């Protein structure tokens, strides 16, 4: 059942494509074309983002992340977050795992949201393309309005969502397992590891992500 859930979306996609292949072949090929472009981008962007995130997980101590991006990081933390988001390549879905790693290591909710949003919209290369098509004035005004907007989105989200609501809630005391399913503990998922802690008395320090803290 759990396996099935994992494949839910991909199964749905395959079914839809099958239907269109039979009924409307021109739309099918058009869609395959567009999706091919998406997938090409994904294959280029995801691996480096994952490797950078993993390197942060392994090397950067939580205290550093907390100082730079945590609750007390203040104005510099905001600037740093906008910077991290805007220099990274790729669409927003590539930002999710990276932002989650920073969050688990102590970045505040607001800074995490700022990273996510600026990853999506504050892009200098994208601004260049926009200027080419839509003109300097329109693009620049939109760009300059977006930066404070992104910071505001971070602050509002932090007011409305509590830290504990972000990871899936688990058994008492085990809620701070990172849910990255990195496999570093030897189990294939954090859930499996959690079960092992509960049922077999395995030490929680087997979690490589927490240990780095």
């Amino acid at each position, binding site marked *: 059942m759990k396996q099935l859930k*994992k494949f839910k*979306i*991909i199964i*749905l*996609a395959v079914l*839809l*494509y099958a239907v*269109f292949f039979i009924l409307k072949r021109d*739309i099918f090929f058009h*869609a395959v*074309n*567009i*999706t091919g*472009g*998406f*997938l090409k981008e994904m294959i*280029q*962007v*995801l*691996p*480096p*983002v*994952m*490797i*950078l*995130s*993993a*390197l942060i997980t*392994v090397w950067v101590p939580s205290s550093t992340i907390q100082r730079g991006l945590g609750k007390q990081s203040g104005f510099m933390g905001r600037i740093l977050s906008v910077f991290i988001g805007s220099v990274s390549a790729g*669409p*927003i*879905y590539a930002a*999710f*795992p990276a932002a*989650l790693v920073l969050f688990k290591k102590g970045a505040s909710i607001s800074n995490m949201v700022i990273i*996510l*949003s600026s990853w999506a*919209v504050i892009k200098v*290369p*994208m601004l260049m*393309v*926009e200027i080419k*098509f*839509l003109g300097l*004035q*329109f693009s620049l*005004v939109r760009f300059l309005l*977006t930066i404070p*907007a992104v910071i505001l*989105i971070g602050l*509002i*989200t932090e007011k*409305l*969502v509590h830290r504990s609501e*972000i*990871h*899936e809630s688990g058994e008492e005391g085990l809620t701070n397992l990172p849910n*990255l399913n990195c*496999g570093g503990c030897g189990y294939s998922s954090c859930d499996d590891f959690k079960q092992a802690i509960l049922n077999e008395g395995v030490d929680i320090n087997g979690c*490589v992500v927490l240990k780095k803290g």
Partner: protein
Amino acid sequence: MTTIIMIVISIALLALSIAKSRQKSKEAVLIAKKMFLGTILEVAGVMAIVGLVLALLPPELIQKILGGSHVMMSTVYGALIGTVTIMPAFIAFPLTKSLFVSGAHLVSLAAFLTTLTMVGFATFPIESKHFGMKFTLVRNGVSFIMALVIAFFMGVIL
């Protein structure tokens, strides 16, 4: 371009990591692999569905919706269309330009462009898998409203 820089940086840092500690690097690669395998299926599925929607939703239709004479309504529509679609920039900007040329209002185009990248209906399942339902709802909701605010200010300034 940024993608290439990022690939180069990640390889360089990985090499540095290997030079410093093989053990830790092995851990990192393992984590990266697991993260990659954990998201790739879902992301690929979502991309496939978005591709299908874009194939079904021709630019002419978007043009008709955004080009409406009622600025406020077409702004809300613009924000909504931007929310449910994902488009690479090289498609989005030329499309926006052609919309502008054919008479769509700047404000609705600004709303469209901003929600296009910042608010994700299609990526909702991926986001909520990482951060949980509530966070995803709040972040996307607030971003949607802020996109309208940005559009409003652009209308005032331009």
